[in-house]
């Protein structure tokens, strides 16, 4: 029983981590229908900002997280103006190509600036170690991830469904021309949405360093994981990716715990199966 609970906890936490590193992509791909394969590059930027602030300037981890968000959002804002904007109406293939190009460039720049090696991250004492509850080992950082992920999902849903900005985003995505006629400043809305998506990528990257590590190949290495969550979850809402991430996390951890000999097959097989059964994702756009 304890082992089952432990697996469930670890799986949910791992799933939440997957959600956190890919929620930014759910925003850009899910809401704006833009295939941003360079999502990982923004995540990596957040990771480096976090690590550098902590190492060189001794900024505490919890302060470095918002900084990672801001830095990636700013980078997203600039790139949106000079590059991404031109590709909203182009085909998915064009979007794939441009953003793969950006990934290569980001890898080269990161190698040039920080070298090819892994970057160390030292968590504050309060976030490391573990608690034991009912015989289950609860890793403190994983608890932290669960809380942050839940808060983030809740906030984003609230913003999208309850605020004027959320309404404007949905209107702009639905039909840009009609939204424009209704007085929505579509360009600005897209720009802000994109920046938020990139900021979330940065935040996810910073939160993920502890588990995923950080080196210049980060954007390419985990591209499949980001896409996995969004493709399996569906692009209609934020709930889909959240469910998908938690499901994949639990499946992966449970598979590794109970059937370790199956190895990497579980995650890929689940992905292919789910996409065959539900090509539009778990929660399809209405």
């Amino acid at each position: 029983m304890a082992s089952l609970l432990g697996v469930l906890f670890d799986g949910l936490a791992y799933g939440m981590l997957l959600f956190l590193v890919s929620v930014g992509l759910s925003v850009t791909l899910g809401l704006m229908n833009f295939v941003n394969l360079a999502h990982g590059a923004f995540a990596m930027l957040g990771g480096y900002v976090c690590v550098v602030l902590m190492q060189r300037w001794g900024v505490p981890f919890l302060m470095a997280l918002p900084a990672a968000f801001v830095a990636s959002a700013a980078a997203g804002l600039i790139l949106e103006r000079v590059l991404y904007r031109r590709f909203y109406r182009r085909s998915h293939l064009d979007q794939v190509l441009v953003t793969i190009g950006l990934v290569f460039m980001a890898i080269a720049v990161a190698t040039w600036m920080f070298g090819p090696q892994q970057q160390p991250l030292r968590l504050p004492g309060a976030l490391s170690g573990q608690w034991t509850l009912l015989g289950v080992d609860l890793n403190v950082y994983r608890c932290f991830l669960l809380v942050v992920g839940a808060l983030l999902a809740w906030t984003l849903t609230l913003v999208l469904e309850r605020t004027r900005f959320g309404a404007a985003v949905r209107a702009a995505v639905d039909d840009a021309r009609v939204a424009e006629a209704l007085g929505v400043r579509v360009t600005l809305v897209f720009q802000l949405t994109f920046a938020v998506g990139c900021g979330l990528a940065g935040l996810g990257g910073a939160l993920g360093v502890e588990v995923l590590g950080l080196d210049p190949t980060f954007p390419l290495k985990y591209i499949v994981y980001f896409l996995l969550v969004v493709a399996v979850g569906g692009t209609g809402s934020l709930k889909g990716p959240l469910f998908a991430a938690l499901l994949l996390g639990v499946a992966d951890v449970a598979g590794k715990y109970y059937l370790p000999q199956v190895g990497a097959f579980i995650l890929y097989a689940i992905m292919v199966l789910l996409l065959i059964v539900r090509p539009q994702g778990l929660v399809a756009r209405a």
Partner: protein
Amino acid sequence: MRLRTGWLEVLFWSVLAAGYVLWPSQLPFASQVLIAGLFALSYDLILGYAGILSLGHAAYFGVGAYAAGLLAAHGWGEPISGLVAAGLVAGLAGLVTSPLVVRGTDLTRLMITTGLGLLLFELANRLGAITGGVDGLQGVEMQPLLGAWRFDIYGRTAYGYVLAVVFVLFLAARRLVRSPFGLSLRGIRGNPGRMRAIGCRVDLHLAAVYAFAAAYAGVAGALLSQTTQFVGLDVLSFSRSAELLVMLIVGGAGLLYGGFVGAAVFMIAHHYLSSLDPVYWQFWLGAGLVIIVLLGRDGILGFFHRRRSSAASAP
């Protein structure tokens, strides 16, 4: 519907045939460019003509490479029959997987092909007893071509063999894209919904071209393993699929020759830029890709093609 054989086409293949004189010391490199070009041609059939976005095409390249390699490693070292067998196996793999791929949107296709590629890579890794795993498949020994020419260290036999196979397959592909079937593929790429409305069984056409392209990819993989006489796990790698996409786009998609031009430019640029500094290569590769797409994704060939046709349409 350009059906004439242009003098540029004749020139293209003549220059390649004259490779023995023009670049006698670079024959191994030229062979590998041709193999990459054939692989890109196969990808052009599904992406450039039929509009299927895939990031897992290396799966079929790898299936062909392992099929030919395993045949040779187990005593069947006759190259041509091995090549045909490898093409058939890869084509069959394409046919079997096509129902998963042809349905769905760009994004699901992207994910499914990527997933299939990763699954196959993992499978080849796990079946180390058969494939050799990451160490690679050893003991691939080829018999002389047509019983007469052994594969020599200068790469002369290999170059002739590769060029002949590529030329024959190119001619077939050229016929295909100029046939009614080729036209229907262009129709599907442009507007699959309307194709259904005029009675086209879209999924069937896509499955057919997907399997055909998979067979081509398999032959390309088989050529690689036969001329290298070794098969590494890298034939199935994700980066091979991604580089393939880049090669085709650099050369120009939907123009038949784009893959060859792209493969040559890509491999030569890789060679020179990465010998200056590996970081440069990656940066300029990325920047080049962004610029090409910004300019309208015509690739190198598309650029000249457009200039020629605009010059022709001017009075």
